């Protein structure tokens, strides 16, 4: 196996907030190999964005405490001096954020921003940097690369702007590309273009990609491996097929079941109700003891759920021929061995009965069971 581009070990981020201490990331470990795409999936507040901001030292000092290890090409990012970290940010790791409008400077031309990015890390003159900038824009598929150099961000559409941001992120040929909800603000047809672009560039350059998103559909299309985050912890990880086709953590199952699915045919002309995960994710200032998911979990099949934190363990059985030891499928739950038990409630058509609602007291009621529709797991 080749040396990983990024190796994160036991990453923890604690923030000081007006409401008290917030444990936003609690022991996250993963590796990214060259040319590999690791998707970090989670809902808002799961800590997925903070975890990568922490890697690049982009969290406000004094408020955030980051511990653990994050080795990028042999160097630990977390113990690095700020000066060195700034050098690494360009050629080591490029970043693409959700909103292309805010990550570009509105008063500078595209060319100026690209040239600046190139000259900050490479010893080339302005003309050469500008030539390189033009090439990059052509590479990310802008129709008029040279003309675009002299335009301002507001003159471009959202998709074009995101292409420019990608060009800036790639201008120093980083070993790692971090995309934080990079396509969330874009329309699906433009999203498809951007995903195609990233896949193409990655194949050409062997860049490792960390793709942060809430969209499991995007994950299925782009990722090699998936890491599902909930309450600042990794609750399940594995290859994209393992996690999406055979999810073992009740949360992953709930998430998949909650997704309206175009590929799912209607039954007798009626599309069944979606399975729901009742309640809302926990606040990082107030994480439950035991399994982070238990207050919302429909299974709670183990006495330890409420008291003991389940470790992230390999769940693929030895007799499973498809099991790959180098890419284990792991889940942090006491209830992984109960497939089918993870049945989520659906609202009954009459509206009578109990259904999964968010009740303001925090504790949800659970839905009427609909056998045979174990959210995602039964597919």
């Amino acid at each position: 196996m080749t040396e990983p581009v990024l190796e994160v070990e036991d990453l923890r981020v604690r923030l000081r907030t007006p409401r008290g201490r917030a444990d936003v990331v609690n022991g996250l470990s993963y590796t990214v190999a060259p040319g590999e795409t690791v998707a970090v999936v989670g809902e808002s507040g799961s800590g997925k964005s903070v975890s990568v901001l922490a890697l690049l030292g982009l969290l406000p000092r004094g408020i955030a405490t980051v511990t653990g290890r994050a080795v990028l090409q042999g160097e630990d990012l977390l113990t690095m001096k700020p000066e060195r970290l700034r050098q690494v940010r360009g050629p080591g790791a490029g970043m693409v954020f959700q909103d292309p409008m805010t990550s570009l400077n509105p008063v500078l031309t595209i060319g100026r921003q690209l040239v600046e990015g190139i000259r900050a890390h490479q010893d080339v003159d302005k003309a050469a940097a500008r030539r390189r900038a033009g090439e990059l824009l052509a590479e990310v598929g802008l129709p008029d690369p040279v003309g675009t150099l002299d335009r301002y961000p507001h003159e471009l559409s959202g998709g074009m702007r995101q292409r420019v941001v990608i060009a800036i992120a790639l201008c120093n040929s980083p070993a790692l590309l971090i995309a934080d909800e990079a396509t969330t603000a874009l329309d699906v047809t433009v999203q498809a273009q951007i995903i195609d672009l990233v896949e193409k560039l990655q194949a050409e350059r062997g860049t490792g990609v960390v793709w942060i998103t809430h969209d499991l559909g995007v994950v299925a299309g782009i990722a090699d491996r998936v890491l599902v985050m909930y309450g600042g912890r990794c609750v399940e990880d594995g290859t994209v097929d393992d996690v999406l086709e055979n999810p073992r953590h009740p949360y992953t199952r709930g998430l998949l079941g909650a997704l309206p699915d175009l590929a799912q045919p209607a039954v007798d002309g009626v599309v069944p109700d979606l399975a729901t995960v009742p309640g809302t994710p926990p606040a990082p200032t107030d994480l439950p003891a035991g399994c982070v998911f238990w207050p919302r979990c429909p299974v709670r099949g183990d006495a330890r759920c409420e008291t003991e934190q389940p470790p992230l363990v390999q769940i693929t059985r030895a007799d499973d021929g498809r099991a790959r030891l180098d890419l284990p499928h792991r889940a942090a739950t006491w209830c992984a061995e109960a497939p089918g038990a993870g049945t989520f409630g659906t609202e009954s058509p009459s509206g009578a009965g109990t259904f999964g609602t968010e009740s303001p007291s925090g504790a949800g009621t659970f839905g009427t069971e609909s056998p045979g529709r174990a959210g995602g797991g039964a597919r």
Partner: protein
Amino acid sequence: MSDDVLVSARGLEVHFPIGGSYRKKAAGVLRAVDGVDLDIRRGETLGLVGESGCGKSTLGNALLRLVPTTGGTLTFDGADLTGLEGRRLKELRRRAGMVFQDPFASLDPRRTVAQTVGEPLEVHGLRKGRDKAARVAELLELVGLDPGVAGRYPHEFSGGQRQRVGIARALAGEPDFLVCDEAIASLDVSVQAQVLNLLRRLQRQLGLTLLFISHDLSAVRHISDRIAVMYLGRIVEIGPAEAVGTDPQMPYTQALLSAVPLPHPALERERKRIVLSGDVPSPAAVPSGCRFRTRCPHVFEPCDDVDPALQPVGAPGQQAACHLHGIVGTPATDAPEGITATP
């Protein structure tokens, strides 16, 4: 057939002047909604999909007279809506509700849940005093909230709960028609499912007619009986959800459908995506002829000249505006003879 149509638009136009004011002549015209024919049947859920800037939100607002229309006709339950004023406009506001996208912006931060949900009751003089409080409690229960939260302020709630409050407000006047404008777009996946299920249940329970506007084709497909696809201010395809969702007839719908990412890795790998080139043209400069021709992979001769009209194609009830199914539409002024066909 026309009896069970609740909302009907014919040639509806909403044009906005660009760069002008009431004193200065506008530099151009933004054609947000540009000739929409649409019938929404009583008791159905119609999904309206399209990408940002296609005019779907403007259309939703126009149907409720929340933005002024600049052309065409609009009827609600058989009555003409264009030019409606005063008391009759107010009655429309009672009979048609709206749920907005951002649950954080759509609730007045200085008013309690009870004040927000009770506002339509006050405005229309429906309930007073204790009756009003009881009705508010009933509405909160209907949307799955504890009636005890009536005295709280919006900031004390999560996004999903706020959206429920917004739905309760829209339902307070016992409307026949509910427009949901990207009502789940800013919610987390697990909460989206809760709200989608809630809307479906309410629609059935109260016999609502629902216009569900969204950019999310999966969600639209899930909740809708029929789907309308909008591109640059025009409806380019409409039909039963099943038909539009599995066998679209208009190249744009096909591309849109193929671009929706599915949570199945194996399927994603073998699926062929139709990646459209370029961006949506500005609604200030709509292409002549077919408005999709600048990005269409199947563009051919008549597309430049003839603005295609919706024509029956595919499944029963399905209609698409595309010359691939026969050239039907309005020719541009200097269109050559022969291509012109009558509807």
